Every structure is written in structure tokens, then in C-alpha cells.
């Protein structure tokens, strides 16, 4: 009996003395309100799809999305006004979610970005009406085979994929949790919650559906691949620390561990687990921000996805993923900084240079912006590496500035069209400034902001991260950053030259007149770009106040 009985007795022992009760989790609904509102609205959106007739869905979805995002933003403002960003910062939901300055700042940014993105999602004037029905950027029926009869029927019937709104809201919900996640499991769940809707959204383009579906599949495969790494890393870190909470792991790293879990006595404190696990978790996050060498999905997906989705993804995903990266590095792994800093130096350098160099030979405006976003990820990483409060606030500021420029730039891309839909090949943009000076000028402003020219938000942001990096002892990184900026400036300015100083092509694209929705999105982008560029101090101060993580 000896062996079996032991096992049995273990079971029975467990059975004889059951745990008293599973404690009811204590949830601070007020402090989690922004996330809860968005996820609740997403569920309402699903119900709308299920219950409302087709013709009412668009208006209802748009209304619900806008109201929910605005309400969630108001909730963030309320929390910030209630000092939850500073003196009352705390960890809510049984240790799963942090409510602190960086979380609130990033949530606010994500919500505003999402709100503007909803405008571009809802745009229905750019594509010519099909069979008398106004259509948006999304496929009539996503499940129909491209070019098949079902698709034709769906187009004829005037179907539209209004599911994009709840998908967007689910993604936003995950993004809100991602930078606030305070344990690794919540981090992982949030990652999946926002990734899965994005995969689907990428596949929904109305035009070039094969390209869109290919992009979605690639994104999904590679995303799953990186998720696996992330999850494996989490497991290793659990093995190392016996806990998945950020604070708990940090304690073990610092050597101030409170109790040793008996079952993990053999592995706990094994630095190999820590280092390997940490690197894998980092990799999962670097994949999301599009850092070299985990960036290769970016151009393909940015190009294939419907442009409004690209804009949203490029802006909001980056904000969320950088938020999570900051928290991981500053809360969990600060004790390891001498291990990960040199590695991150390397990642930042190849990201900045790689993004900028490859962008030089791009001929498609969406791919160009994708590589530009890679280079920018490198610049932001320079601020992350600073490991100072200024580093945090500069990254927060940069993210806010960058996301609006990105969203605005992609919105402009939706306007320039020819018979095949959006005319994204750069040769078609030649002479745009002659025919549509306003649109070209707006795009030029965004490009100048990307290039970091003074009086745009890009300059203020770049200056802030480089200054923080230099103060944090990363001078060489700043030098490389400036060199990359110079390379990057080349291809931004080249587009401006192309638009304003080249002869227009005779069969060139035309600029569609958008509805007030897209106009508003672009106008907000321009306004934020210029305000943050001309008078950045208030927002820098705001980011500075929000620059302390709770642990």
C-alpha cells in the first residue's frame, strides 16, 4: 500500500480538510470603472448585433461606442482628479490591477485614441456607394469567400460589418488592462483579450481582401508564437519566484522574500530561470511594440489591414504595450537592471537603425509608416532604458504625442484614393500638394512631426526621451538615436518633396471628401500635434506627475 496509500492519503487529506471557503474576491468597481465600462459596452455591442435589425445596428453601435469611450475617459479623469494617480495610487482587484499615475495616463491616452479611431471606423463616405448603400472600409461579410457569390450577394444586400465596433471595444478593454496588469497572468489574459479582436479586425478589409486575410493570418500565427514565448516565460518566472505578482517577484529578486513555497524549494531563487523567463516575457512585449528583430509582422500587417484598423493598432497597441513594458521593467525587474539594460540597449539600437534604414527604400505609404513606427519604437525604448522618473514621463509624453500623429497620418491615407481604393503607392502621391494643398499640407505636418521638427509634438517627445536617456547615462544611445532621426528625416522629407515639388500624374488619385467623422479625426490629430509641439510644458508636467508606479 505504501506508495498508492501515500498518494491516496494525500488526496484524502485534502478531502478531509477542505479549504474553509473560497473567499469572495474584493473588487473595487469604482477604481476599475474605465475598463468595466468599455467591456460592458462591448457586450452590449454583441447584443445589438444579435437583437437589432441590420439597418439600425450602425447607428446603435456608433452611439454605444462613442458614449462608452467618452464615459470611460470621464471615469479616468475622475480617478485622476481623485488623486488615484498620485497619493491614493493602489493595487486593486486582489492584486491583479494597479491603479496609479502611469496606468491612468496611458488609459486616458488609449481611450482618446480609441474614440478618434471610432470616428475613422465609422467613416462611410470615402468608398463609392455600392448598390445605393453607403459602405465603410470593412468587408460586407467577412466570412464570405473573397470574390465569391456569397460576397456579391452580401454587397448587393448592403451588408456591413458592424461587428467592428464591439471588436474594437473588446480590444480597448484588453489594452486598458494591459499596462495596468500587476501580475503576469493578468498580463497574459489582457494580451490575448486585445490581440484576438485585432487579428479579426485585420482580416476585414473591404478591398484587397486576400491581402487583408493574409495579413491577419500572419499576425495571428506570429502573435500566437510570441504568446507562447510569453507564457513560457511566465511559467519560468513563477518557478523562480513562486508567485506571479509583480511585487512578489520583485521581492524575490531583491532578496527580501517573505516566505518560501515548499513545492518550489528546488527552483526558487534560481537566477537562470529568472533571466530566461524575464527575457521571454520581454520578447512577448517587444513583439507587440514591433521592436527589431520581432518586428517583421509590422509592415505586412499594417499594409494589409483596413487603414482605420492600422491607425488604431499602430497608435493604441503601442501605447498599451509600452505601458506594460515600463511596468515590467520598473516594477518587476529593476533589481536586474544590470542584466537587461545592455540587452535593451542592443534592441533599441537595432530597432532605431533598422526601422529607419529599411524605410528608406519603401514605396508604399502604409509600409513606410510601418517602418517609421518601428524606428519610433526604438526612440521610445531609449526613454524606457533611462530608468529614471524622467524616463517614465518622457515615454508617457512620447506615446501620447506619437499616437495622435499616427492616427492622423493613417486617416489622411484613407482619403487619397483611385479606382482601386486607397492609392497607397508613393508614386501616386506625386504632386498631391498641387491638387489638394490642404490634405498634402496636413500630411506634411504629420510627417514633420514624425521627423521631429520643432514646433511639432514629435520634437518635444523626441527631445524628452533623448534628454531622459542622456541623463540616465545612455549618451551613445542618444547619438545613435539622432543619427537614426537624420536617416528617418530623409524619407519623411522625401514624401513632402514628392507631394509638393513633383509634377502631378495625369491619372493620379483623387482626394475623397470625407464626412465630418474623418475630418474630426484628422483635425484632432493636427491640433494635438501642434499644441503638444508649441506648448508641451503642461503635458510634460502632467506626464511627470503621472510618472510613479505603485508596487
Amino acid at each position, binding site marked *: 500500500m505504501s506508495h498508492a496509500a501515500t498518494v491516496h492519503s494525500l488526496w484524502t487529506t485534502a478531502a478531509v480538510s477542505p479549504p474553509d471557503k473560497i473567499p469572495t474576491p474584493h473588487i473595487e468597481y469604482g477604481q476599475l470603472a474605465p475598463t468595466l465600462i468599455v467591456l460592458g459596452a462591448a457586450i452590449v455591442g454583441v447584443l445589438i448585433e444579435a437583437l437589432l435589425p441590420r439597418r439600425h445596428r450602425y447607428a446603435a453601435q456608433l452611439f454605444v461606442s462613442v458614449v462608452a469611450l467618452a464615459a470611460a475617459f470621464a471615469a479616468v479623469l475622475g480617478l485622476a482628479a481623485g488623486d488615484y494617480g498620485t497619493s491614493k495610487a493602489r493595487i486593486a482587484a486582489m492584486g491583479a490591477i494597479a491603479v496609479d499615475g502611469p496606468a491612468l495616463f496611458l488609459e486616458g491616452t488609449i481611450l482618446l485614441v480609441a474614440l478618434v479611431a471610432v470616428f475613422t471606423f465609422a467613416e462611410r463616405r470615402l468608398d463609392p456607394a455600392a448598390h445605393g448603400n453607403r459602405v465603410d472600409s470593412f468587408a460586407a461579410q467577412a466570412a464570405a469567400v473573397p470574390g465569391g457569390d456569397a460576397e456579391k450577394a452580401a454587397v448587393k444586400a448592403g451588408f456591413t460589418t458592424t461587428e467592428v465596433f464591439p471588436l474594437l471595444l473588446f480590444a480597448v478593454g484588453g489594452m486598458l488592462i494591459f499596462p495596468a496588469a500587476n501580475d503576469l497572468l493578468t498580463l497574459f489574459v489582457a494580451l490575448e483579450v486585445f490581440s484576438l479582436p485585432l487579428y479579426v479586425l485585420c482580416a476585414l478589409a473591404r478591398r484587397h481582401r486576400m491581402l487583408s486575410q493574409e495579413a491577419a493570418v500572419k499576425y495571428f500565427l506570429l502573435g500566437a508564437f510570441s504568446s507562447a514565448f510569453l507564457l513560457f516565460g511566465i511559467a519560468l518566472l513563477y518557478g523562480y519566484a513562486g508567485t506571479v505578482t509583480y511585487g512578489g517577484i520583485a521581492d524575490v529578486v531583491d532578496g527580501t522574500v517573505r516566505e518560501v513555497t515548499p513545492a518550489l524549494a528546488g527552483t526558487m531563487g534560481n537566477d537562470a530561470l529568472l533571466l530566461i523567463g524575464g527575457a*521571454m516575457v520581454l520578447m512577448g512585449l517587444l513583439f507587440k511594440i514591433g521592436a527589431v528583430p520581432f518586428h517583421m509582422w509590422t509592415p*505586412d500587417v499594417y499594409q494589409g489591414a483596413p487603414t482605420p484598423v492600422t491607425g488604431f493598432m499602430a497608435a493604441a497597441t503601442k501605447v498599451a504595450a509600452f505601458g506594460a513594458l515600463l511596468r515590467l521593467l520598473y516594477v518587476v525587474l529593476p533589481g536586474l537592471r544590470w542584466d*537587461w539594460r545592455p*540587452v535593451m540597449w542592443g534592441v533599441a539600437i537595432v530597432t532605431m537603425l533598422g526601422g529607419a534604414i529599411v524605410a*528608406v527604400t519603401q514605396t508604399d505609404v502604409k509600409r513606410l509608416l510601418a517602418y517609421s513606427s518601428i524606428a519610433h519604437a526604438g526612440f521610445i525604448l531609449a526613454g524606457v532604458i533611462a530608468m529614471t522618473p524622467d524616463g517614465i514621463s518622457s515615454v508617457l509624453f512620447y506615446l501620447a504625442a506619437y499616437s495622435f500623429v499616427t492616427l492622423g497620418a493613417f486617416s489622411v491615407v484613407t482619403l487619397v484614393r483611385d479606382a482601386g481604393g486607397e492609392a497607397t503607392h508613393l508614386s501616386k502621391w506625386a504632386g498631391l500638394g498641387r491638387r489638394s494643398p490642404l490634405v498634402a499640407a496636413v500630411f506634411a505636418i504629420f510627417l514633420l512631426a514624425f521627423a521631429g521638427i520643432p514646433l511639432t509634438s514629435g520634437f518635444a517627445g523626441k527631445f524628452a526621451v533623448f534628454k531622459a536617456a542622456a541623463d540616465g547615462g545612455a549618451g551613445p544611445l542618444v547619438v545613435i538615436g539622432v543619427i537614426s532621426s537624420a536617416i528617418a528625416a530623409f524619407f519623411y522629407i522625401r514624401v513632402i518633396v514628392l507631394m509638393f515639388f513633383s509634377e502631378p500624374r495625369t491619372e493620379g488619385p483623387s482626394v475623397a471628401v470625407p464626412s465630418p467623422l474623418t475630418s474630426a479625426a484628422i483635425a484632432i490629430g493636427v491640433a494635438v500635434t501642434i499644441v503638444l509641439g508649441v506648448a508641451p510644458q503642461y503635458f510634460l508636467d502632467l506626464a511627470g506627475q503621472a510618472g510613479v508606479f505603485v508596487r
Partner: protein
Amino acid sequence: MENLIGLLVAAPLLGAALLLCGGRRLDGKGHLLGTALALASFVIGAVLFADMLGRDEHDRALHSHLFSWIPVGGFRADVAFQLDQLSMTFVLLITGVGSLIHIYSIGYMEHDERRRRFFGYLNLFLAAMLLLVLADNYLLLYVGWEGVGLASYLLIGFWQHKPSAATAAKKAFIVNRVGDVGLSIAIMLMFTTFGTFAFAPVLSNATDASEGKLTAIGLMLLLAACGKSAQVPLQSWLGDAMEGPTPVSALIHAATMVTAGVYLITRSGAIFNNAPDAQTAVVTVGAVTLLFGAIVGCAKDDIKKALAGSTMSQIGYMILAAGLGPIGYVFAIMHLVTHGFFKAGLFLGAGSVMHGMNDEVDMRKYGGLRKYMPVTFVTFGLGYLAIIGFPGLSGFWSKDKIIEAAFAKGGTEGWILGGAALLGAAITAYYMTRVMLLTFFGEKRWVPDEQGNEPHPHESPKSMTIPMIVLAFGSVFAGGLFSLNDAFLKWLEPVTSHSHGHSPLSAATVTAGTMVVLLIGVAIAWVQYGRRPVPSTAPRGSLLTRAARRDLLQDDFNHVVLVKPGEYLTRGLVYVDHKLVDGVVNGTAASVGGLSGRLRKLQNGYARTYAVSMFGGTAVLIAATLLMRAV
């Protein structure tokens, strides 16, 4: 009273702003507005003057602090004004003569369609010059200094449709820039030496600084003065500046601009007093220029250019006097004021002549105009008598004092300077007599121009003659009034200090000598131009005459010494830029492009390749992290 000082500057500045920004609405009455504001500034100046006279002579300086302009750490620049006797003298000259020139311009510019703009620039000129003389620190003075440069540029090039005017404006501006660099270096040196650039602390601590530093500051200030006051070697712009409308010439030569250099040196007296080498440089520049200008003035047939040479020469006297130190400061300023009257009068007279002669400037095509323009003749004649130093008239009192002071310098230096000043007086008498004879005496020599329009010489309108008459009064009486009971000396002495020096010659001897050379100069001119008819085309002339016609080869000198080497330098730099810099830049760009093309091929579209890249990346990440720990 202090508050009024700001208004002195504000009135013309307001005028400039209104006239230049007001648009066409002000086309009709704008010139009257500009003139009224210039007069307003003069009235304020007069009120302040009366107030100043009412106070004890050691308690006359007023100070008005407007606001801190650039307070950064230990660096402090204020917008603050200082009105003492020296500034007051300039204020009255600038606003007084300036207002007369405004009034004159009402008539002179009557038919110019850009008249409003002209008066706006005139007001700007006054405002800048007032700022210059009222500033209580060198930095604010520099603002006025640059403002004067800007206004002169705008006015000299006012008839921008004439390429020659545009070129002249550029020339004036660029030559002035050279001087401006001197001033800015001087200010920087002051800041490093004294830690401030306010007049009071700099000048009262001047004795503490080493002589070397003071000499450096002094030489840089001299360079600045050379630029604005058209002294050798930065004199070349003055003659060309005659391309501007004649009232502008009067303003530049009498009330503003060229007097700025004299002001700067006099104001910085404490620095020069302690830097003998710099003073030597100043008197050398002054002596050379007074002869240079006089010789140029002899050869010119263009009435305005002859007068321009004369200005250069007269300013040379002032610089010479200012370089003499306390012996000469008062007389430099006194000559500046009397010169302000008669030179303004002469220029306005010249303008009046041109007005009546279809804008002809060649004196060889004048002749006998005294019958046609009696008022112009009389006022111009009085100005002429004043400038040559006819006994009893303004120029006599002030120039004589400078010659005396030059001898009083003592030693060989005194003899050389005094001799130069005497020689200058003789040449002055010669060329001014020549101008007078060519213009107003002899036979009429005018001919129809290319379009066949015969000039009909006539007297100018009242708005032009009245300022000339007022200035003629100044030309006649100002010097005498100033010298009465040494009034001007006592007025300025608290600011500039004064010493008599030790003249080897008695005052009477010097005066007698001056009279003799004056008579010689007039006599020679009479022999050449009064006794026999004047050819209406200039004879070939001697080598010196030909050189003087070309401004003693100043432009050729600049061309060979500065322009040519400059061209070679820029060509060399362009070559280096093309071959070396561009080569590096283009090479870098090409290699980045090539690298980009190669890296791009990694992006082949296959998810499996991407996954391998991610896998490899993760492996490197892990390996690097472990390696860091191992190291």
C-alpha cells in the same frame, strides 16, 4: 519727469508703427501724422530740457527704468533710459533737426506715391536714434544702433526701382555690419571684464580694468564708430548713400546715423581716457578721415557727393576731437551740433536746387542760380559761410576750438594733428567755395535733358524753404550762443569733464592761422571757378583729381583687399563643400540606401521566415542576458 523720457522714443515709434502697419487708409494724411509725432517728440524734449536747466548742474541726469529685458542668472539687461546733458544735447538735435526735415519732406516727397512709407521710415529712424542716445546700457544702445542701421538701409534704398539705390542700401548695410560686429565684440568684452554693460558701473570701474582690455574694448568701439560715422576705413558707403532722397541725406548727415559714432566715443570717454593707444587710433582715424573726405569733396561734380565728402571730413574733425580726450569731448559735441545745423541746411538747399532743376545733380550744369532761387541761395550761402568757419558764424566757433584742442594735445602729435586740422580747414574753404561758385554764380550752364525738357529753375515751396530758413538761423547764431560765456562748455562739463591742455600756440595765433588758410582756400577756388568760365564737362584733371573722383580708390581698395580674397575663400569653401562634404553626405546616403535595399530582402512575406527571426531574436536575447550575468 522721468516718465516723459520713454515718450521721447515712443512718439516716433508709434508713428512708424501706425504708418507702416496702417495700410492705405493713411496714405492721405500719414505724412502729417508722422511730422506731428516727430514734433511731439521735440516738444517733449524741450520740456525735459527746460526742466533740466532748472536743476543744479550736478543733479541733472534723469533715469527711467522701464522693465527688465533679459534677466538670466548673472546676466541682466534692462530697458532703461538715462537722460543727462550729453543725451539731452543729442535729443534736441535729433528731434529738432529731424522735425525740420520731416516738414521739408512734406514738400519734397509730395508727388511720391510711397510717401506714407517714407515718413514711417523717417519716424523709425528718429526712434532708433533716440533709443541709441537715451539707453543707459550698451546692449540697449546696440538695439538703437541696429535700428539706425535698418532705417538707413530702408531709406537709402527707398527708390528701390533704381538698381543703384538698392545697391547703395546694401552697401551701407554691409559696411555697417562690419562696424556692428565691433560693437558687439566690445559689449561682450565689457561683460567679461566688468560683469555688466550698464554705463554707470562700466564707466566708473574703467580704471580697475587692465589697460590691455580697455584698449581692446576701445578699438572695437572705434571700429563700430567708423562704421556708423563713415570714418576710414569704413567710409565707402557714405558717398553711395546719396542715392536716397535728399531729406534722407540731410537726416543721415546732420541729425542721425553719422553722429552715432561720435556719441559712442564721447559716451565711452572713461574707457578711452585710460587706454592711450586706443585714443591714438581714434585721433589717427579722425585726422586721416578729415583730409580724406575733404580731398574727395574737392573733386566731385555731383553736389550731393561733394557735400557727402564734406560730411566725412567734418565728422573726422569730431572724431579727432573726441580722441583727444577731455580736451576735446566738449568741442566734438559742439561741432556736432553746429554741423547739424549747417549741414542739414546745405543738404536741404541742395535738395531745393535739385527740386528746381529736374533732379539734376551735376554742378557743372548749374550756374547763376542765385537769381532764380534767392531764398535757397541765401540760406545755402549762410550754411556755406558757417562750414568754412567764417568769423562769427557757427562753424567758426566750434571748428576753431577743435584746431586749438588738436594743438593742445602737445608734443609732435599735437603739431601733426593741429597741422592736419588746419590743412583740412583750408581744403574745406576751397571745396565749399567751389560748390558755391559752381551752383549759384557764373553763367547758367543748364541744357535740356534727353527728353528735351529744359529745366526751369524756381524757388521751392514754403514747406521746404521755411526749414531751410530756420536752419540758417542755427548756422549763423548757434556757435556764438554756445560760446557766449562758455555756455556749452559749462553745460557738458559735468558729463564729459574738460581740461585745457597746454597749447604751444595762443588761441589768437590759431585763430589767425585759421583765417589765413581759409582765405587761401577761398582764393584758390575763386581763381579756378570764379574768374573764368566753367566747362560743362569735367576736364581730365591731375592724377590726384582723378583718384579723388573715384573716392580716392576706396572701392578699388576694398575690391582688391577684401572682395577678391573673399571670393577666392568662398570659391574654395564651395569646392570643399561640393567635393568633400557632399561626397561624404552622398556617400553615406548611398550606402544607407544600399543597406536598406539589402535588408529589405529579409522581409520576404513568409510567416515562417518571420518566426525564425523571432526565434533567433529570442535566443539572442536570452543568451545576451545570461552572458551579461556571466560577465
